[in-house]
């Protein structure tokens, strides 16, 4: 697992109160990890803060799973 994936997992565990084992690449924030729409907004903000970047809204809308978040960040974090 990449360093980015590990940090993403920790943020999700912290914010959503789920077990690490649940945070699989396929896991959907809302369908699988118990997040509501506000939780998802907060998660995106945490990713922005942790990785010091800005995720435009139209990109954020496409981040629904753990894997999609990791892929976006691996591509955009300098």
């Amino acid at each position: 697992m990449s360093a980015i994936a590990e940090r993403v997992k920790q943020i999700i565990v912290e914010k959503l109160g789920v077990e690490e084992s649940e945070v699989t690449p396929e896991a959907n924030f809302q369908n699988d990890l118990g997040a509501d729409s506000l939780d998802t907004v907060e998660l995106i903000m945490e990713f922005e803060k942790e990785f010091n970047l800005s995720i435009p809204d139209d990109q954020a809308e496409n981040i629904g799973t753990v894997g999609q978040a990791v892929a976006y960040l691996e591509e955009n974090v300098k």
Partner: protein
Amino acid sequence: MSFKRVVITGMGALTPIGNDVATYWKNLVAGVSGAAPITRFDAERFRTRFACEVKGLDIHDYIPRQEARKMDPFTQYAVIAADEAMKDAGFDADTLDLDKAGVIWGSGIGGLKTFEDEVLNFSDGGRNPRFNPFFIPKMIADSASGVLSIRYGFRGPTFITVSACASATNALIDAYNYIRLGMMNVCISGGSEAAVTNAGVGGFNALKALSERNDSPETASRPYDKDRDGFVLGEGGAAIILEEYEHAKARGAKIYAEMIGGGMSSDAYHITAPHPDGRGAYMVMKNTLENAGLQPEDIDYINTHGTSTPIGDPQEIKAIEKFFGEHAYKMNISSTKSMTGHLLGGAGAIEAAACIMAIQDQIIPPTINHFTDDPEINPRLNLTFNTAQKRKVDIALSNTFGFGGHNASVIFKKYEG
């Protein structure tokens, strides 16, 4: 249409002198002060560096971390107090009509810490407008009633009353009236506040409302003492379960007391100062006794607003003497804020609980920290100084007065079937 009777069937408390009703009451009767140096934030540069904080509390013993972090402390306090009260009331989840169950809570300010944290974050972050999505739902004062409604599935009337330091009393009056009118059977009422923050202490300091007796926090809240110098900020809250009498009787509920009246008045005078003649205080007591159908001689105990401010204390006392006449010298009067500090919008809730327990145990909790008589306060009054007093307590009155000139009082009576 005849009004229904309303009884108290559950209580919960989270206070600076006890994190449940039993401990709170034991310490009230024992005369324990809840004041101590502030731990919630670094108060070193503040004029007042002490408060009555809730102590020894790990929120996560009561509320899972993921839920707790979406609540301002004033809502966390509401949940902890309400959980105790709901357990105490012992409703049967299978038969309780949730559409006829409500939540009417009081808070003077709401999520002050949440507001402060988010704005500080905005300011420290170069004014980049990135606010947490939970900011508004955590901060708005009604969130406590919303969270409690969701928590217990109560689908009747749910809202918050805001009238500064009278808020929880207004909540109790609304709950009482809606049950009397048959609009609900059961209501979680009460109130909570969590204003021991930079902005809370700093704001009240700017008003010169707080005691600055930093060298002796535990003796700082001294209502009716000649050397009182302001109120001591407190935090916490209490939940009071109000229930329609026949509903309570049908399920064999434990009944603490009956609520028999509530009344309001306004000073229409000044945004923070009470009317110097105690006009509003006089009228609220008059209105409340009329609402309850009582005569002045019927009152055994008044739990006063008595915040320990130089101008507030005498005007309430003068109003009591004027309204009650000779009976003013026959009843017991005390300010339990001498022990708990002033919980602002939560004050009416913890003081209602004190009145109900006084009726239960037939004992008056004291006004502690009395050292020097104030020539402005008539020594014929029994202000229950320093030590609890046993006496017959059938009927107790609780007074609360808020900034804005809002006055609200409630009356509880011994339950007699």
